[in-house]
């Protein structure tokens, strides 16, 4: 297990290093001069050149990267060109909003997804299964910004049950969490159902039934537990997606999370903020995949022993 962990952590560090290199060099070759944007229409070419030198942007890219990487390792991501605040401070503030939104959404997605998936599998080919799977297809197909606007109109503007936008307290997160979580709930429901049905054909399930075990015990102890591997894969990926892909929902509900911060930063070519944000997303994804890998190993010992593969 220790070897397995060390190998995975080293791989994760390699991925983060590669991402930092790739994004830094890509950001430096994409068109759009941050200094020109920052100084605006009335700046003379001399002023632009002077400011570029002041910001160290006239140095070779590799030197800029080394400076940036050195500072990053000391926890200094630099300052935003436009907001004039430390990148770390901006990321932490935005992360606070994103983590709240993501937590509520994920809780909703996993709870509803697992419940619907198990129910659909238990009532396979009955009306419950059909209704739940129609809902799941609808949930996957509906764009989340569309769901968001419908929720705003119905539950905000018309019924006035929840606030339309903002992020002051829990009530402000209800509609965004539903809008963001619906799609993931649907995908978890589908994968749970399919996985449970797959498992239900196994010999040990027939054995459990032959032993006369109670239905709920068969479902929860034998079917659900053995169906977990694909569910963990999807749920883990979904967590990463929720944490890093909530930009549209943040925009519609005016929640100043990481997604909105990144989109604005890219539009302005706020390089330190984009670079810091990319590192944040990379870190989150790598950590989540690391946790998922560890969970595989916990759930299925064959994986940590090195003989198995994820598809087994």
């Amino acid at each position, binding site marked *: 297990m220790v070897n397995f962990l060390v190998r995975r952590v080293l791989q994760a560090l390699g991925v983060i290093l590669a991402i930092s290199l790739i994004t830094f060099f890509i950001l430096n070759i994409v*068109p759009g001069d941050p200094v020109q944007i920052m100084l605006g229409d009335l700046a003379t070419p001399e002023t632009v050149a002077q400011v570029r030198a*002041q910001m160290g942007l006239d140095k070779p890219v590799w030197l800029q990267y080394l400076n940036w990487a050195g500072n990053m390792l000391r926890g200094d991501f630099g300052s935003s060109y*436009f907001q004039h605040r430390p990148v770390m401070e901006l990321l932490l503030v935005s992360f606070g909003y994103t983590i709240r939104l993501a937590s509520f959404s994920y809780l909703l997605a996993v709870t509803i997804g697992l419940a619907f998936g198990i129910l659909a599998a238990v009532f396979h080919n009955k009306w419950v299964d059909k209704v739940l799977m129609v809902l799941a297809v609808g949930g996957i197909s509906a764009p989340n910004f569309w769901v968001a606007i419908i929720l705003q109109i119905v539950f905000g503007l018309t019924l006035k049950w929840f606030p339309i936008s903002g*992020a002051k307290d829990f009530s402000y997160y209800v509609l965004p969490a539903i809008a963001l979580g619906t799609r993931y709930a649907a995908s978890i429901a589908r994968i749970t159902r399919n996985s449970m049905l797959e498992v239900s054909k196994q010999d040990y399930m027939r054995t459990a039934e032959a032993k006369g075990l109670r239905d709920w015990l068969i479902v929860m102890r034998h079917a659900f537990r053995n169906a977990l591997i694909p569910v963990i894969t999807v749920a883990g990926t979904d967590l990463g997606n929720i944490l890093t892909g909530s930009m549209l929902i943040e925009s*519609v509900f*005016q929640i100043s999370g990481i997604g*909105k911060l990144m989109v604005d930063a890219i539009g302005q*070519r706020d390089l330190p903020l984009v670079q810091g944000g990319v590192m944040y997303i990379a870190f989150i994804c790598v950590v989540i995949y690391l946790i998922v890998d560890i969970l595989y190993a916990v759930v299925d010992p064959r994986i940590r022993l090195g003989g198995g593969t994820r598809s087994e």
Partner: protein
Amino acid sequence: MKKLLAAMLTAVMLLSVCAFAGAENAKVLRFGQMDAKVGYDPQTNTNSGATTTEDCVVEPLYYWNDQNELIPLLAEDFPTISEDGLVYTIKLREGVKFTDGTDLTTDDVKFTFERMFKPETLAKSTSMYNMILGAKEMLSGEATELAGFEAVDDYTFKFTLVSPFSCFHKNLGIIYSAIFPREACEAAGADWGVKTLIGTGPYILKSSDATGNVLVKNTNYWGGDPHFDEIDIIFYDNNNTKLMAFENGDIDLCDMTSDLFMQYQGTEVEELCHHFSKLGTYFFVTNNSETFRGEKNPLADVRVREAMSLAIDRDLLCEVIQNGLAVPATGMINQFQLGFTAREPYEHNLEKAKALLAEAGYPDGCTITATIRKQDEADTVQIQSDLAQVGIKLNIEIVDAAVWSSERAAGNVQCLLQGWFPLYADADNNIYTFFHSDYSPAKSCFYSNPEFDALMDAARLSTDDAERQKLYEQADEILSRQDYGSIPLYYPYGVFAAQPYVKNFTVGNLIYHVAYDIDYDMDIYNAQK
């Protein structure tokens, strides 16, 4: 013991009720707008979204009100200008205090301008003030003090200019030269405009975060009692959400885009919308240089540019694409600026356009490429369709704002659509900064006509507005009607949505003044609340 507890509980409840009642009675204006995300230091940003907040907190020497008139603000009166037009003597109002309790003196003015010209400040609007003697030396790091500033006493000072510039005191009416308190600004350092902003204005910035800003009344404001106890600037980056919040009564006032206005036409919201005339002009910028990307540039020929103007249906642009929120332009200078003169509408004549193209050597038309931002797509597609009728093929490249800005500044754009808005109603702040040969290359326009430049320069030297009016009329005639240096399209209107109890709200220019005139009709307000 029980009695004591009961008494304490009662007291707490009463206090809570009083506090609640107090909060309920507070007169609060909730203004919905986009988050500029550029901080609140008017020297380091020129974003009108940030200005809404800055304008409540800090004040310049003069002030452009919503009737587009320049009035003295921190200055006691208009400046005394020396005969040679070089020395401006200004007297400050006495007894004005910053909200940190310190007095406003000439030392704060000196500090403010010197801070602006220090290279490390990275001030964005120095070109509006760099005619002050010594400013350029400070910007290049050769000097640390502003040679053109002289403090006569605590309340009187002089600016000396390098050359006469009749709009100098008009530029002092822009928020970019708002006066900062030396002590507080120096103490704040890098936090100035980020976590700290102190001025002499009617409101104090109480808090600022990603959701909005809270401004509370400056109870010691020198100019009288501000109308609101609190102004909440609430951020909405999504226009649909902002309008939904307005419908829901979450905000009292907000701006609106023309496409959303169409969506609300015929609804109750439309009745709450107010139009105002923006000071700017939308135009089709043409690259006037002889070659473009190594090839002969059709747009270098004035006949091609005139043909384009003849082919564009401005009425259609205004009525259909802009939903009636624009009027066809008759020149580059907007109808509400000094320098505007009434002219015949531009002709829409396809046959004449074809004839001009043939005369220019393009009987089968030509191909040009517009590099635009997404926001200008609808207008440009309409123009593409208009130009196709006379044989001009217009390719459209849509790029993001960052690429557009950089490519345009580098002169790499053949044509583009854009609006250009002056900060006050004067042609100098508009067409000089775009079409004078010193500026036009950085706009990918490359317009250059010595006669036009001479008229614009002469207008800068004159302090007589009647004479300046004539000079600008001539300059605009050359630019817009003879040279077609670019092609004026329309003068846009802005739209604001205001709840029925909001009164005295007008918009004079780009800057949304929410701090001064605007108020509530309390009868309607109380009835509605």
